[in-house]
């Protein structure tokens, strides 16, 4: 087998795709690390009393639950269960949309108490906005994968688009695990 053929062998191709996706996660991680560290640099441990704690913990729960449905979608297709995979993808999409609605409500309240010109407002809108964009792009990805799945394009041997989109979704969840306490919980 020559080098080019070996590179395109299915197992090698999957390994390369996974490695590429993880490198992407690492590079994105630096972006969020910079944004999160700017919160501590600019504000220290200050936490405004006006933050809606119920909404914050609520949307965190929604995002964690969406990670379970995404995981179940991947497990299902790995075992060749396409209908269950599609159902779980749809649930993930709906939960992602619900999270975005929650962020919208958060923003509506935040504009009243700490507008974008305010120091906390700047950090709050930048962090939630950048993360929200990632959630939105994840939802778009999952919709594409779901539509392809409904056409029967995935099976137990070939489901990289499901795996890639689901991994991206979990990544967005990991980022929120750090953003949530950074914005809502830390205090001196």
């Amino acid at each position, binding site marked *: 087998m020559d080098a080019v053929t070996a590179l395109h062998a299915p197992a090698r191709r999957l390994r390369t795709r996974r490695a590429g996706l993880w490198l992407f996660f690492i590079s994105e991680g630096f972006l969020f690390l910079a944004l999160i560290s700017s919160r501590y640099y600019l504000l220290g441990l200050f936490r405004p009393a006006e933050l809606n704690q119920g909404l914050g*913990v609520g949307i965190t729960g929604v995002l*964690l639950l969406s990670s379970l449905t*995404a995981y179940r979608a991947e497990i*299902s297709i790995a075992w060749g269960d396409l209908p269950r995979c599609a159902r779980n993808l749809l649930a993930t999409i709906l939960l992602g949309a619900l999270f975005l609605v929650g962020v919208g409500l958060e923003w509506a309240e935040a504009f009243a108490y700490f507008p974008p010109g305010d120091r906390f407002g700047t950090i709050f809108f930048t962090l939630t906005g950048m993360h929200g964009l990632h959630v939105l792009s994840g939802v778009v990805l999952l919709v594409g994968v779901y539509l392809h799945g409904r056409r029967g394009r995935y099976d137990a041997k070939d489901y990289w688009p499901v795996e890639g989109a689901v991994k991206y979704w979990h990544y967005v969840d990991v980022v929120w695990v750090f953003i949530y306490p950074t914005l*809502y919980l830390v205090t001196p």
Partner: protein
Amino acid sequence: MAAPTKSGGLRLGWRVLIALLLLTALEVPIAFRVPRPLPYLLLINLIDAWLILQYFMHLSQLWRPEE
């Protein structure tokens, strides 16, 4: 996959979710009742992240490519 069967994998997902929700629920009282909560919150976040990376994102696939 971490679990050898589909039902085992699905059950594992629920266990991880429950752990994540419990850790998140633990964060709130720590933030409001414990003085200087940052180190405790960071520790909980690192555990959260590890659970997601290990069980949901199958991090170990990177060095066990046959999975």
